[in-house]
């Protein structure tokens, strides 16, 4: 085991037996007596390593094997094959020791006590995780401020809004200074403001404490704002594992330059880019990554025209990833 990695996963597999159901009335009778099983390879030979302090986005369509991987990493599931080292432990083998060193937020569920005021749940966690008094007080006061928990600290969890609950759950997951944080859909169902607050907090925890974060999400703006590195899984296999930039460069499609000219020009054509939209003084150019840089293009334009304002639009990461899934651009 290499200590420079906080997570080492090699040839990880998880297979489930799923009983096959027969249809119709006779089928229902057959179900009573016979059981046919089908082997589902939810995770089928996955390899990756993660260094301490990384903030990694783990992406994939529903049923791709994302949450099965996370469950194995969190020690909830025993792998069918392969090896898994996290924080120097085999998660499922030493559950109690291992889970003390991690934090986890599963977006749809809460770890807090439903009928209790938030603060009482948090106080209870101090005892559950045996957090030293001083540490607990320090972390709580910091998270209270950063996540703005004070307005609902005495409200029972059942009366919180989704965003408030998520903030309380994030606080709960980090009070014991975990070195590793698993976030499964942390921004699901939240409005833009609430999402932004949560992202800022995750970034802060990663910067400030060097907490390693593994994040699964359907909202790719989470990934764009937070993660340098992404892993993409589909049909139980990793399709991509690397920098977000690399993913963009390889599959990103075209970038766009939006220019507001000082006056309406008749002819705005320029070499290396195509005009895709025109509206008064505003013109949108599309250009290929690799064939021309944004600054070259701006240089050419400003040599010919008077420009008032401009901005570069990166290709939508969501569209990129959708293309990868749909066209199966990355065969394993």
């Amino acid at each position: 085991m290499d200590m420079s990695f906080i997570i080492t996963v090699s040839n990880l597999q998880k297979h489930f037996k799923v009983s096959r159901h027969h249809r119709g009335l006779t089928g229902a009778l057959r179900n009573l007596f016979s059981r046919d099983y089908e082997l589902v390879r939810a995770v089928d030979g996955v390899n990756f390593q993660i260094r301490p302090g990384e903030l990694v986005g783990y992406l994939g369509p529903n049923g791709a094997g994302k949450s099965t991987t996370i469950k194995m990493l969190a020690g909830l599931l025993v792998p069918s094959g392969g090896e898994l080292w996290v924080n120097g432990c085999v998660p499922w083998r030493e559950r109690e020791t291992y889970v003390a060193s991690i934090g986890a937020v599963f977006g749809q569920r809460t770890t807090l006590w439903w009928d209790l005021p938030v603060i009482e749940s948090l106080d209870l966690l101090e005892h559950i995780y045996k957090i030293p008094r001083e540490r607990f007080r320090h972390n709580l006061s910091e998270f209270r401020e950063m996540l703005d928990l004070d307005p609902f600290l005495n409200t029972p969890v059942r009366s919180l809004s989704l965003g408030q609950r998520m903030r309380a759950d994030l606080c709960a997951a980090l009070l014991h200074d975990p070195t590793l944080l698993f976030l499964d859909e942390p921004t699901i169902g939240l409005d833009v403001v609430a999402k932004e607050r949560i992202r800022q907090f995750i970034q802060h925890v990663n910067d400030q404490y060097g907490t390693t974060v593994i994040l699964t999400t359907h909202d790719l703006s989470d990934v764009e704002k937070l993660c340098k590195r992404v892993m993409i899984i589909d049909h139980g296999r990793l399709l991509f594992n690397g920098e977000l930039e690399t993913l963009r460069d390889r599959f990103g499609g075209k970038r766009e330059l939006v220019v507001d000219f000082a006056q309406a020009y008749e002819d705005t054509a320029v070499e290396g880019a195509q005009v895709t939209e025109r509206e008064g003084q505003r013109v949108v150019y599309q250009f290929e990554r690799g064939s021309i840089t944004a600054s070259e293009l701006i240089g050419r334009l400003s040599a010919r025209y008077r420009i008032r304002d401009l901005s570069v639009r990166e290709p939508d990461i969501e569209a990129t990833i959708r293309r990868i899934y749909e066209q199966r651009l990355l065969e394993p």
Partner: protein
Amino acid sequence: MWRVLDLYRRLLAVQIRAQLQYRIAFWFDLLGTAGITTLEFGTLALILQRFENVGGWKLGEVAFLYGLIDMAFGTMDMLFSGFDPPFFGQQVRQGRFDQLLLRPVNITLQVLGSRFEMRRLGRIAQGGLIVGAALALTKAHWTLAKVIYLPVVFVSQVSFFGGLFIVGATITFWTVESIEVINIFTYGGNEMMCYPMHVYPDWMRRFFTFVVPAIFLNYYPALYFLDKPDPFNMPPFVSFLAPVAGLGVLVAALAFWRFGIRHYASTGS
């Protein structure tokens, strides 16, 4: 060990505080559970008045058996309500059990601490009153040995029922469709243990002797407490097997529970 007890105390305190938030609901629940028991036992008492006895046992003697089992089951239902099979099955399906597994605390302790049904106090109190009435009605001779043995039998019954709940909860790792079958063992077992065992057919009594050793927990100890003769001519020490049977069932249930958790970790469903 102290840490474990301290944590358990805190988890229970949380449950109690949460339940006291709904004060009116709490009192209604308490009255409700107590009321049902009273009604059930009232019906039995009326029938007994008509027929004088159940299998040769008089009202006071049946009341002793009935009240003791009621108290024990109520106490168990309060302490082990986290293991109540339908409740536990739901916790597993909703992912709440996974949340417990993510905490660095013994999982059995956490399930015990996850629910504490205070309203069972109604049933316990009712059982206590019935036992009290039974003691007034029967003329059994209370020796020191009996006074010491009574709480032992009570604790054994609580462990026995607790074991049944744990077995039921564990089965929900495999299937939730058989919840009704599990209820036959827990609630049905509780119900049948309220009456003297010799009124049941042989096969049923054999089942509750050799498969589920319920007979050693209510019937035989009761024969001893009430100075009744044993119609099956078993050796007299059989009346003192309650702790063996009670703890035995609990220990076996906990072993099955650990096996179930291992199975759960390999299937996640």
